[in-house]
């Protein structure tokens, strides 16, 4: 499990770990039913207090992403992906609020900001579509 901790960041270490485990579940790098390292192992690996790791596991368990089975370990739940939206909702609203603040400072209206979000989403789906990826190769070279 690849987790990176940024020391001295404004984001608390427990939140850094929580978010990254969430991302690993979302991207499928941690599959439903997969077993996570023990609290002790992950604490040692990351050089982070065991209580911090325990708190992260407990938080993700109460969010429905993980399941702590007594004597067996901690596992990714089958419904983890669905629960993720709930977990990340708060963070997304947070980031959107920052973007909103910048837009207000720049004098953009609500409609103009919505337009910008639409453009950004279109760019994303264009980049993700296979046609777009193939596009340059379709152009015949003279």
């Amino acid at each position, binding site marked *: 499990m690849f987790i990176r*901790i940024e*020391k*001295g*960041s*404004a*984001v*608390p*270490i*427990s939140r850094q770990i929580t978010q990254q485990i969430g991302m690993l579940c979302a991207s499928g790098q941690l599959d439903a039913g997969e077993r996570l390292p023990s609290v*002790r192992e992950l*604490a*040692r690996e*990351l*050089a*982070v*207090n*065991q*209580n*911090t790791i325990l*708190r992260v596991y407990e938080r993700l368990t109460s969010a429905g992403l993980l399941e702590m089975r007594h004597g067996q370990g901690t596992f990714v739940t089958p419904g983890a992906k669905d629960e993720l939206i709930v977990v990340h909702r708060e963070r997304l609203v947070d980031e959107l609020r920052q973007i909103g*603040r910048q837009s207000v400072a720049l004098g953009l209206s609500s409609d103009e900001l919505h337009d910008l979000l639409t453009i950004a989403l279109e760019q994303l789906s264009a980049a993700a579509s296979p046609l777009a990826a193939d596009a340059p190769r379709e152009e015949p070279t003279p």
Partner: protein
Amino acid sequence: MNDPASPFAIEMQAVEKSFGRNQVLRGLTLQVKRGSTFAFLGRNAAGKTTAIRMLLGLLHRDDGAIRVLGLDPAREPLALRARIGYLAEDQTMYGWMRVDEILRFVAPFYPTWDHNLALRYVRDFELPLKSKIKHLSKGQNVRLGLVLALAHRPELVILDDPALGLDPIMRKQFNRDLITHLQGEGRTVFYSSHLLYEVEPVADEVTILHDGRIVRQTETESLRRQVKQFILSRQAWETYRADLQLLDHRAEGDRVAVTVENAAQVEQLLAQEGVEHRTVDLNLDEIFEAYVVGRKV
């Protein structure tokens, strides 16, 4: 404070200490829970080492009370030191001794010395057993000091700025060992440092010592939740300043940046009153700085 079943490994109550006219500790009060890792932070010369030397019974207090593992260090320093592992800030060891010689030299001082454990640490820390201490690097010296502090399996380990001579890789390795061998086995760790970000990953509680007294003792997580900066209009600052537990404030034009230690409460108040503001999460260096050099007025 005489209860042997006290939940605290260390208690200091209104401790005072002066050297001549220089008052170093001014009513220092703190409690360290058994089994916890306690970060003791302060700038250089804040009084950290003075406090630590008192916990070990190496210095006597002028006033106040101290209890370490149920004992008064001033009365029973030797009984106490047998149960404590101590790594001094500038550990000086006999330079002419070899590593294996100092292990044999120190062992008889501790009834609970575990020589196999000492040898395992020596191996983990990649220390050359047959080298003379004066030929070790700064980092190796710190690691040898650690071996000597841990090999008698102490209940309480006091580390005076242990990361000072270590490179970033060794620091991480050191934190790992602390987690595995100390936290994992339920020992109490009193970890002094001048770098908040260095101790944050491992500490249960953080205490900031400034000007001879504790300016904050709190769980590591809540420190970040409670200490934040708000950018307000000058008018809002005048209106609500009585509600702010202020650490620092700076004015610029008609805006004021205030750092407070009751952020949750302030956030709620500003939201409730509909006051336009911006909240800034601070990194640990900024939090530490607010406490030790903040301008309150």
